[in-house]
C-alpha cells in the first residue's frame, strides 16, 4: 500500500457530501443566472462580478498566505499547506469563470462605453489604461502569473511526498519573488476589476486593502475546512489546540489589518472632504448601504476582535470555526458593499441574481476545491517540521 494513502481525504468525509451538494447548487445557480440574463443581462453581470470577486478572493488569499508561510516558516504552515495548495489549484477554474466578465465589460464598466467616454475628459485621459483590449491583456497576464506560481508551489510540495528531498529552500526562494509579483498583479487586478467600476474615483490604499481582505477571506475559509478535517485522523493527530490557537491569532491579526486599512482610508478621505473622493463613500453610506457599513464595523471588526482576544476561544475547534464563519459571511457583505453600490439599483441592496450568482460561482468552485483537496495527502509527508509537531502531541 502506498504510505500516503492513509493521509488522503476519507471518502466519507463531510466535505465530500458538501461538495456534491455544492456542485448541484452551482449548476442550479448557473442555470438561474442564465435564465435571468435573458431578461436583465446588466443586473446579472453585476451580480456575477460580485460573486466572482468574493470567491476568487479565497484562492488568491491562499496563494499569498502560502508564500508568506514559505518565507517565514512556523509550524502552523505545514498543517495548512495542503489545504491552501488545494485552494490555489482552483485558479485555472477561476480563469475560465472570468470569461463572462471579460465579455460583459460594456455592461459593467462605464469606461468601456464609447458614448460615455466621448463626453468625459477624465475618462479620455484614462483611455490609455482603461480600454478593453488592454484590460483583457492584463487579466490574462494576472492569471498566468498566479497559475504559474500556484503550479510550482504545489507540484514541488507534492514531489517531496514521493521522494524525501529537502525542497524548503526552493519553495522559499520562489515565494519571495512570487509574493512581490502577487502584490503587484493583485493591486492592478483590484484596480481593474473593482475600483474602475467608479472610474473617476481613486485611492492609493485600495490595492492593499483588497489584498488584506482576500487574505482574511482565505483564512476564514481554511479555518472551518481544517476544523472539519480535524474531527478525524490524520488531521486529528496534528491539529492540536496549539495549532488552532495559531490560526486564531492569524485571524485576529488580519481582522485588525483589515480594520486598520479600511479606517485609515475612510478617515483620510472624510477629513479632506474632496469632491472627487467623497462620492464613493456617500454612495456607500446612503440608500440602505449605511446599514451594511454599520454591520461591517460591528460584525467584521468588533465582534471577531473581542472574541478572538480570548485564549480559550482560539483553542476551541468549534468556537474558532464559528467565529471564522462569521468573518467569512462578513467578507461577502464587504465585497458586496465595495462593488454593488457602484451600480444604480434604485435603493435595493441585494437582488435575486446576486444570490443566484453567489451560489453558482461558489458551488462550482467548492466542488472543484474538494476535488483538488482529494488529489494529494492532506499533510506534506516529508516536511521537516512534521515529526516535531507530532512530538508535541500530548
Amino acid at each position: 500500500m502506498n504510505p500516503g494513502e492513509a493521509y488522503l481525504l476519507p471518502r466519507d468525509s463531510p466535505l465530500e457530501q458538501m461538495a456534491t451538494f455544492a456542485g448541484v447548487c452551482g449548476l442550479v445557480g448557473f442555470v438561474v443566472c442564465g435564465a435571468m440574463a435573458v431578461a436583465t443581462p446588466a443586473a446579472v453581470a453585476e451580480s456575477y462580478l460580485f460573486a466572482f470577486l468574493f470567491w476568487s478572493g479565497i484562492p488568491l488569499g491562499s496563494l499569498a498566505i502560502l508564500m508568506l508561510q514559505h518565507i517565514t516558516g512556523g509550524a502552523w504552515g505545514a498543517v495548512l499547506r495542503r489545504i491552501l495548495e488545494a485552494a490555489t489549484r482552483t485558479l485555472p477554474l477561476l480563469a475560465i469563470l472570468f470569461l463572462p466578465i471579460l465579455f460583459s465589460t460594456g455592461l459593467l464598466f462605464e469606461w468601456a462605453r464609447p458614448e460615455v467616454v466621448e463626453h468625459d475628459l477624465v475618462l479620455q485621459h484614462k483611455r490609455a489604461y482603461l480600454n478593453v483590449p488592454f484590460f483583457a491583456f492584463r487579466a490574462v497576464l494576472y492569471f498566468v502569473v498566479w497559475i504559474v506560481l500556484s503550479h510550482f508551489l504545489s507540484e514541488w510540495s507534492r514531489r517531496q511526498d514521493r521522494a524525501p528531498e529537502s525542497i524548503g529552500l526552493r519553495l522559499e526562494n520562489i515565494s519571495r519573488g512570487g509574493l512581490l509579483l502577487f502584490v503587484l498583479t493583485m493591486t492592478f487586478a483590484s484596480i481593474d476589476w473593482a475600483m474602475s467600476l467608479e472610474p473617476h474615483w481613486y485611492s492609493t490604499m485600495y490595492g492593499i486593502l483588497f489584498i488584506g481582505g482576500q487574505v482574511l477571506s482565505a483564512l476564514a475559509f481554511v479555518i472551518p475546512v481544517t476544523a472539519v478535517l480535524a474531527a478525524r485522523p490524520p488531521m486529528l493527530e496534528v491539529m492540536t489546540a496549539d495549532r488552532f490557537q495559531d490560526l486564531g491569532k492569524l485571524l485576529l491579526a488580519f481582522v485588525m489589518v483589515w480594520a486598520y486599512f479600511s479606517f485609515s482610508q475612510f478617515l483620510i478621505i472624510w477629513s479632506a472632504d474632496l469632491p472627487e473622493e467623497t462620492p464613493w463613500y456617500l454612495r456607500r453610506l446612503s440608500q440602505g448601504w449605511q446599514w451594511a457599513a454599520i454591520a461591517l464595523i460591528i460584525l467584521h471588526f468588533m465582534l471577531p476582535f473581542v472574541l478572538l482576544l480570548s485564549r480559550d476561544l482560539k483553542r476551541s475547534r468549534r468556537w474558532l470555526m464559528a467565529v471564522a464563519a462569521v468573518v467569512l459571511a462578513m467578507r461577502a457583505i464587504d465585497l458586496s458593499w465595495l462593488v454593488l453600490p457602484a451600480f444604480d439599483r434604485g435603493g435595493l441592496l441585494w437582488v435575486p441574481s446576486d444570490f443566484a450568482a453567489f451560489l453558482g460561482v461558489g458551488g462550482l468552485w467548492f466542488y472543484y476545491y474538494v476535488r483538488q483537496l482529494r488529489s494529494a495527502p492532506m499533510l506534506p509527508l516529508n516536511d521537516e517540521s512534521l515529526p516535531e509537531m507530532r512530538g508535541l502531541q500530548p
Partner: protein
Amino acid sequence: MADKKPTKGSKQKGAPVSAGAGSRSLSSHLPPVVEPGYTMATVADKISEVVLTQNTPRGWYIGLAFSFALTMLLLVSITWLLVRGVGIWGINVPVAWAFAIINFVWWIGIGHAGTLISAILLLLRQDWRTSINRFAEAMTLFAVACAGLYPLLHMGRPWLAYWLFPYPNTMGMWPQFRSPLVWDVFAVTTYLLVSLMFWYIGLIPDLATLRDRSPSRTGRIVYGLLAMGWRGSARHWHRYEMTYLLLAGLSTPLVVSVHTIVSFDFAVAQVPGWHATVFPPYFVAGAVYAGFAMVVILAIPLRRFYGLQDFVTMRHLDHMARIMLATGLFVAYGYMIETFMAWYSGSVYESSLMNNRFTGPYAILYWSLLLFNVLIPQGLWFARVRSSTTALFMIAISVSIGMWLERFIIVVVSLHRDFLPSSWGMYYPTFWDWSMYLGSIGLFFSLLFLFLRFLPMISIFEMRTLLPESEVKEDLG
C-alpha cells in the same frame, strides 16, 4: 543573588512556535544566536565588564567628545532660536514646514525598530531579539527625545507647550481634537513614556547584577538604588515576567499607531503629495525600515569595538537585513502606487506634483531618493551581501539618507508648489537648519555613548536563557 537564578524565558523554550514565528525554516541554514562555549558566568563577565571596568577605552572618550561638541552646537542653535525666533530657519510661506518636521519624522521613525524588536518580536517568541533589544530600546528613547525637540521648538514659543494639553483654563482655550497634530501630542508622549518604562523594567535584573558585581561603593549605591531592591526571588521573577509581557502587549499597538498618526498629519490635508490614502501603512513600513537601518548602523561597529561578535552574530544581522528588505519593498510599493495614481487620477494637481518631483527644481533629490532607498537596498536579496558587514553597513547608511530624503520630498516638494502658481516659492535650508540637525545627531550619540558606558548594552539575564545549559528538560508527555 540575582546572579544565580535567571529563569526568565526558559519555559518558553519548549513552547511551540507561534503564528508568524519565523526562526524555524531559517535556523537550519544560519549560524546560532550565541556562539558556543559560554557559561552563565562568562556571559555576565563579558557584558558587565564593559560597564564595570576602570579603564574606559580611549575610543569611547573620542566618540563622546565629538558627539558632545555637536550637542553644544545644538544648544547654541536653540539659544539663538529662542533669541531670534524661527525666522533664522529657511522657512517661509509657502514652505512653512521644513527641517523641523522632516527631522521630527525621521527621528521618530528611527525609534520604531526598538519598539518592534522589544515588543512584537517578544510576543512572537523570536528569541534572537535578545541580544539586540536592549540597545535598540535605548536607541528608541534617544531618537524619540531628539524627535520631541523639533515640534516644541517649531512652535516658536516652546515655553507655552503645555497649551497643547486639554486643561481647564481661563483663556477659553481647548485643543482642536479633530486635528491629528493634537493626536500626535498624545501619541508621542505615550510612546516616550511606555518605551521608557519598558526599557527600565527590562534593566532591573541587570542593574541588580551590576550592584552585586560593582567593585566601587558609589557603583553599589547607585546601581542598588536603581535596582529597586531586586533580590531575584521566584516571586520577583514571576511578577517581573507578568509586567514585562503586559508592557509588551501595551507597546505593540504603539509600533503602528505613532507613525500612523504622523502620517495623518499630512494625509488629512488636501495638498497633493500629502493627501494619499496609502500613507498610514507606508509610513509605518518606512519607519521600521529606517529603524532597522539605524540598528544595523549601530550594531556593526559596536560588536567589533567591544568584541561582541559572539552575541550579536551574523544571524542577527541577516534577520535585520531581511526585515529591511521587506519593509523597503513596501516603501517602494508606496512610491509606485503614488506615481501610478497621480496619472490615473486625471487630476491636474496630482500629475503636476508628480512632474515636479521627477523634473522640478528638487528633482535631483527625488532621483537620489530612488537610488538610496530603492535601488541600492536591492542588494539585500543576495546572501553574500547580507553576510558582509561592510556591505550591510553601507546599505544601512544609504537607507538612512534615503528615508531622510523621502521626508524632504514629502514635506518640502509638496508645499513649495501647490494649487496657485502665483504663490509658488523655493525653500533653502540656512546654517541654523543644518546646525540643529547635526546637533540632534550629536545629542543622540552623546546619550548613546553614556548608555554604553554606564548600563549593560545587552541584557545579561536574557542572554543566559539562550545558553544550552539553561534549557529546561520538561516532561512533555
